[in-house]
């Protein structure tokens, strides 16, 4: 369960220039929910994702995930929390195009120095689930858009995280790929993941398998 309590986030661009990104945000998300944060660019929805992922810290307030106060964690522990609990899907996939599919998917696990067999078994689970095993050793830049998408999703799932976070996942995609992505989301939901998507793509609005839509505007939740 994810809780944001009385969150305020202020960015100091310089001494005289402060940007208020979030104001008094209170939010809870239950396990297994799939939630969409709607809002225009700059509304603050990406900041909320950052906070949940432990990538940034609030100026005041608490971020509690599974009873853990992650805002107070020192950097190394925040990263470990993120690695174990969060799967990130970025706007432009952000894969390393010169590496192979397997290398990209295993990227989050490199620092762990796991056994070769353990790594391979984790890899096999995700590449089979997301239908990319036939291209296991191909270099990413040679893949089609849809295949790259699946690699990105596979990478987000390699450590079997409980929470999937997607920041504008369809911003650069055509309609076909966007719809593809939505299908993948259904798959993820069936695995019991908690999914949080920040987007202003109308394709997401009103979908029946979404549990909630939360509108954000000017750093505040619009009721």
């Amino acid at each position, binding site marked *: 369960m994810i809780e944001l309590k009385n969150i305020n986030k202020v960015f100091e661009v310089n001494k005289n220039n402060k940007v208020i990104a979030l104001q008094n945000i209170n939010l809870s998300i239950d396990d297994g929910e799939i939630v969409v944060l709607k809002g225009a660019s700059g509304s603050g929805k990406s900041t909320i994702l950052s906070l949940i992922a432990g990538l940034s810290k609030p*100026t*005041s307030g608490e971020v509690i995930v599974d009873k853990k106060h992650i805002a*107070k964690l*020192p*950097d190394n522990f925040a990263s470990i929390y993120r690695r174990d609990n969060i799967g990130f899907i970025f706007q432009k996939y952000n894969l390393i195009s010169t590496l192979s599919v397997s290398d990209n998917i295993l990227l989050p696990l490199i620092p762990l120095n796991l056994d070769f067999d353990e790594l391979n078994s984790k890899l096999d689970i995700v590449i089979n689930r997301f239908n990319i095993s036939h291209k296991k050793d191909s270099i990413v830049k040679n893949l089609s858009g849809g295949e790259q998408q699946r690699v990105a999703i596979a990478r987000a799932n390699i450590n079997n995280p409980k929470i999937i976070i997607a920041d504008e996942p369809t911003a650069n995609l055509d309609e076909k790929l966007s719809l593809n992505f939505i299908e993948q989301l259904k798959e993820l939901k069936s695995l019991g993941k908690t999914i949080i998507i920040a987007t202003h793509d109308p394709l997401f609005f009103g979908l029946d398998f979404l549990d909630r839509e939360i509108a954000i505007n000017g750093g505040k939740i619009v009721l």
Partner: protein
Amino acid sequence: MILSPEVLTIFILNILFFIFGTIAFFLSVKIYLGWDNESVEQSQYKLEKQSFLTATIIKYIFAIKVPLFLFFIFTLDKISNVLVGAMCGAGVVDATPYGIYLFILKIINLYLFAYWLVLHNEDMKNEKLPFTKMKFGFYSIVYFLFIAELVIEGLMFSSIDIDKMVSCCGTIYSSSSTSYISTIFSLDSTILLVLFYGTFSLIILFYKLKFRYIYAILNILFIIISLITLIAFFGTYIYELPTHYCPFCFLQKDYYYVGYILYTTLFLGTFYGIVIGFIDKSKLEIEKSFKKSLIFNLLYVLIVTVYPVIYFLKNGVWL
């Protein structure tokens, strides 16, 4: 003034150490004064980032210090070829008043830096970062000893006069010389051996009892008594010469470099032993340190005992 390439290398690295060590010092003081684990201010996050830089610098300095120390010993050996009268590093150390202090200081610093590393590792394992303030405060103090070492090293090398004759280890450590070291060697070897094996037995005893603090203190004593007995007794069996008292010569090729093994095992054994008394670790970690300490100390005692025993078996008499 000795201007050999080896000495210049040491100087260059010392300058680097000085620059980065001082950066680490300023950061350490800043962090020590301003650290507040509970704070959510920007300033605290900045400090957290800077703590990584400081820790990295200290880690790198230590990582290079160790091979540099070895290199230092090689250099002393090489210089002994140019100094009239010196047969090994001992003569070079004795050539200036700084030599022996530099040596002791270097060894102490190795222990201190290694201790800092253990402290740092324990700190990073815990979400609360319990030792951060302490480790940087500790470094702030160690810094001064570190700088002292660099300065004295510079002084020592620049004041070596190649025209001046120096004594060989034979005269420095013999019982007829006037230095205070010689008074130790005039002690009866039986007493020394009793102290040595006695301390070691106590170490085994307190290992079984798992009394941390007494174990740590015993290890400190063990360093001292081991060094003394090494020079006064065991060394003579390595050299097979009853009058050859020298802590350097057995580092040379002629003795199969056994000196390095001896000093390394002694360092590791006593280091892990001392660390137990000074850092609060989890039970598992303490167990591991106890074990490592005992193993290395045991190795040291075994190797060092082997020499007189073999001598006796070969020759039927003691030296």
